[in-house]
């Protein structure tokens, strides 16, 4: 609580009037991969997401959703435009600050990115260790988190010994265990059955209610249509639509 307040103060000092209420603020962002024959992956993206919002990003395969997520966690840097996340201008960020910045995020990667030679427990605990939690807290938080994603019994397994959906849930547990201010989830239910998908979505809603800004990339039409959240639709690198209480757009 005290920390959150401190952070708020910092925010009002650093950010301008306009973007301070947005945890994610993109202005005229362009991104082209150097080895893609100049075809841009994202073009003139303008996007503002307020603290505490729940946003779906949808769009065809290859429309630039993952590229957008990667910009937000500074895995990639924009070719031009402004990317401000958690009041940090990512285009100007120095290497030394990146780690600290990323710790305020929770990220579920489309390809999971689990540490192959560590078991489920250690993978999730790793996120806690980098924020210097005590072993005592870790021993409390990690099993809690694992049972929330339905993997309490698998804590000793290595990623290779898990099914696709189980790996995906470990990735989610790792992203959530630090109670991040922003959760970026790239296709977090692609390998999950409808029941598990529902459970996970309920979990994300709960996390969102507790104050975390949630950005979910998904292809799951059912979920998008039933949850009635803000929906941003990408098409070939541009924002096609951005609607409050939106639905999955089929063309």
């Amino acid at each position, binding site marked *: 609580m005290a920390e959150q307040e401190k952070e708020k103060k910092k925010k009002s000092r650093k950010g301008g009037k306009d973007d301070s209420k947005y945890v994610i603020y993109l202005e005229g962002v362009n991104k082209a991969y150097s080895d893609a024959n100049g075809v841009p992956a994202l073009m003139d993206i303008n996007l503002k997401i307020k603290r505490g919002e729940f946003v779906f990003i949808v769009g065809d395969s290859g429309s630039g959703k993952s590229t957008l997520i990667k910009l937000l966690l500074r895995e990639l840097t924009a070719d031009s435009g402004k990317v401000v996340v958690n009041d940090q201008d990512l285009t100007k960020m120095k290497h030394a600050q990146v*780690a600290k910045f990323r710790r305020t*995020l929770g990220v579920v990667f489309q390809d999971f990115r689990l540490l192959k030679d560590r078991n489920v427990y250690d993978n999730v605990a790793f996120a806690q260790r980098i924020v210097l939690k005590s072993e005592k807290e870790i021993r409390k938080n990690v099993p809690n988190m694992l049972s929330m994603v339905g993997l309490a019994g698998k804590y000793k397994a290595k990623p290779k010994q898990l099914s696709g959906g189980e790996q995906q849930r470990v990735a989610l547990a790792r992203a959530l265990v630090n109670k991040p201010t922003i959760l970026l989830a790239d296709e977090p239910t692609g390998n999950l059955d409808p029941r598990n998908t529902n459970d996970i979505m309920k979990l994300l809603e709960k996390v969102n209610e507790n104050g975390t800004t949630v950005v979910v990339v998904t292809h799951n039409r059912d979920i998008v249509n039933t949850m009635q959240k803000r929906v941003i639709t990408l098409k070939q690198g541009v924002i096609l639509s951005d609607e409050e209480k939106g639905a999955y757009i089929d063309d």
Partner: protein
Amino acid sequence: MINTFFYTLGQGVKNVFRNKWFTMASLATISACLFVFGIFVAVVFNVNHIVKTVEEGVSVTVYFNEDVEQERIDQIRELVTRRPEVYRCDFISADEAWAEFSKKLGENAEGFIENPLEGSENLQIYLNDVSKQGELVGYLETVEGIRKINKSELTANTLTGVKAVVTYVSVGMIGLLLAVSIFLISNTVTIGISVRKEEINIMKYVGATDFFVRAPFVFEGIIIGLIGSAIPVVVLYYLYNAAFAFLQSNFAFLNDFISYVPASDVFIYLAPASLLIGVGIGFFGSFFTVRKHLHV
């Protein structure tokens, strides 16, 4: 912080077991390289020692004027002994000279009945460093009462030359082996860590600091370096003593003019050098290789 330190240390140790392949390969490379390196250091030490022994056997012989008295001879001997380049100075009476010389002649000496070297009492001067022979002779020429200075210019020059070649080759070989060892070990460390590039990237993407990612790898490097350099030192120590014993018992006649350097004299240098190389490369190798993958 204390927490992090122990975690880091623990991860370093765990890494050693987690990446068995890499650990084995690095250990093997370090051990093999330092083993060869150690053998050469040992051989070079002994060769230099032998050269040194031979060097000490080269002498300058001084003959005196016929009228010179024993007192003056003793005086000269005194003066010569005091000079810094002189290692030892022996007086040889005429009879001793002939006894010695006839040994050299072998059976040829049988033809002589009386000492043909009468009046050839002399001083045998042994030097610390053959290359100083010229200097000594220069001095001796100024000393009164000396009839003749018998120096073996050829032997001295040859020995100086051999010494130079041996030194060149020794330093060259050890330098080369050192360079190749360091290169090969770094190579292995680099491959081994590059394989884990993805792991490093993931840690960074999740928000770990450079230090947090790197420290376990550096610990791992130090541990492997330590073990990898300790193994050949221990093996070499026993091997050295065994070889020593073997040579002394099987080539006993060589003992007259060759003496070996005792293990302790070699290992007092070799052991710390090996450990330093092992640990150093373990440290710097992992430090710099990990750094390459941190910028994501």
